[in-house]
């Protein structure tokens, strides 16, 4: 099966970062166009033809956040990944609330960046999942209709709220869900600030679905930002351990 290569628009004012990202991404089969300003990015996007945008938050000119806002007006479904720094959690939350798909924190590893790009693109390209279809990630299986969860085929007993949290996270697996969004989804908008409350539930939930709740592999924390259910792809790649990631080969042979 041949897939069209992923076309990336890279927006960063630092030429060193553009120069570092371009060769490996190209070598791995992506098509990369890079620009240094939000204004330029918007111009390129009007012409169309991109699958994903990598957008630096701190740039001169209109900056990353404003660029994101304008991209969303232009292309509501186009995946946008923000390139941010640590200690800028509020920026991350703001970007996510403005519709960014995800973010990576500088200095990131190429593997992490590529995984995030693939997840974001896959989400858009994949046919819409039927809302009541069961979700299987790793050894966990969640049935939204029967409201049942099994782990290694053994039933996991969850309270109502625990199930709702898990459903929200698993149906967006691979993607960070901000505290506010998760709280609103499960408890309603009045509770969007009750982060510690949510933490208590997540701790209980981890005890039920993780082998080692202190080192979770499914239900992950994005410090200050929210929670993220592990990308299903990571479990598939683990099985194929020593083999190179299959889609990499495929794209390199293009």
């Amino acid at each position, binding site marked *: 099966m041949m897939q069209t290569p992923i076309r990336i628009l890279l927006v960063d004012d630092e030429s060193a970062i553009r120069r570092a990202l371009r*060769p*490996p991404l190209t070598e791995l089969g992506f098509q990369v166009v890079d620009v240094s300003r939000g204004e330029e990015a918007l111009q390129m996007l009007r012409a169309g033809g991109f699958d994903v945008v990598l957008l630096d938050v701190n740039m001169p000119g209109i900056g990353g956040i404003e660029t994101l806002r304008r991209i969303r007006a232009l292309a509501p479904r186009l995946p946008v990944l923000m390139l941010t720094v640590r200690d800028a959690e509020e920026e991350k939350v703001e970007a996510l609330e403005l519709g960014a798909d995800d973010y990576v924190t500088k200095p990131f*590893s*190429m593997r992490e960046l590529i995984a995030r790009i693939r997840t974001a693109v896959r989400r858009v390209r994949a046919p819409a999942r039927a809302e009541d279809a069961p979700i299987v990630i790793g050894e966990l299986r969640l049935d939204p209709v029967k409201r049942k969860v099994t782990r290694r085929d053994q039933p996991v007993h969850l309270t109502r709220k625990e199930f709702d949290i898990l459903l929200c996270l698993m149906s967006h697996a691979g993607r960070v869900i901000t505290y506010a969004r998760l709280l609103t989804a499960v408890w309603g908008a009045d509770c969007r600030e009750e982060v510690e409350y949510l*933490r208590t539930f997540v701790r209980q939930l981890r005890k039920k679905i993780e082998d080692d709740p202190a080192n979770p592999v499914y239900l992950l924390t994005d410090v200050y930002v929210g929670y993220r259910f592990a990308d299903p792809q990571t479990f598939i790649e683990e099985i194929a351990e020593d083999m190179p990631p299959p889609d990499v080969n495929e794209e390199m042979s293009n």
Partner: protein
Amino acid sequence: MLDNRLNLSFIPSSYESANAVMLLAFVLVALLIIFILAHARSNAREAASWRAQVLDLHEFTRRTLEMNLRLEPGPQLADLVHDIFALEAVAVFDAELHQVYPVGHWKADPQELAQNVYYFGTSDDDPKTGLGRRVVRLGTVPIGSLVVRGNTSPLTNNAIASLIAIAFDRYRAFANESRMETERRTEQLRSTVLDSLAHAYKTPLTAIRAASTGLGAMGSLSAAQAELVALIDEQTGLLADLTTRLLTTARLDAGEVTVHAAPVDVAPLIEEVVTSLGDRLASMKVELDIPEERVVVECDRQMLVMLLTQYIDNACKYSIFGSTITIRAEKVHAEIVFSVRSFGPVIPINDRERIFDRYYRSTTRASRASGTGIGLSVAKRVALIHGGSVWVTSDETEGTTFFAAIPVTARRRVS
């Protein structure tokens, strides 16, 4: 923080407080004049001598107000007293600097003379020798002494001693103020430099990491090449961590950090920190001691993680291999007191306060370990930002315990 003394301080830039001193000094002299005149009215010849002394006192007051507050006050005061009152000899003792400043011709040792006055609290006048001795007091607190030989009166000596006390106090207040100002400026400069450095590092670090991990991701590297690339990656990671820590401290220092205060359950928080330290704690026994079932504190979770990580990491670094580290959290009045106890070299008394200062590394060899000398200052800042405090106790039998007290309820802070 300003103490009472500083509120009365004599900062030259502030006209208001300078006027207050001026007023105080003149009121003092005026009262003395009234007192002297009342006593001297009967005797015309005595009155002339009194008048001369009053004029001298007036001159002395004026000159002390013009004193250079950047220089030690003792020598200036001794000179002024000697000149203005035309005395044979003068000695001023400054107890804080522990210095005697003699002027004129002394037969006996002025050092001993002046210090004895201070230590034995003798204030008297000997008409035979012409020797006047005064303890210099600020309020009731002795802060020095004055010994004069020559033609003065007991009342004049009292007035001189009072004016010297005021001059000493002005000098201290001024010195204190400039020291605090200098410290504040230095700290500010440090923070700015650190912040811009850390920011400047981010981009090259990101480029290096992207390049090295990019090489890895592209594959087709030989084993040796892959190993070197992994090394670059690993070291970049270390540098990135250090940069982030520097940035955090710089921001904490500059008070630019946003406190995300929320109720935090203490027990799971401590467990989380212990887990995250994983390998480093492997060779130690760790004991958790949380007497109450559920302890909740309103704080910035991530900052508290930083504080506890620092304490526990510190305990690992300095404790005896295989010994026990005890981590405790308990509610004491309106605070949660966290403590981390370990057994290792005792921290000398002199180091206990300064150990929380940035860049301070103990001068004692035994208590040295690898580190940047930044960590404990972060712990202190975190506690202070939360309206709490840090301290340490250390001795052979009880071991070394680092404490941090954090108020249970976050105060509304304006930063």
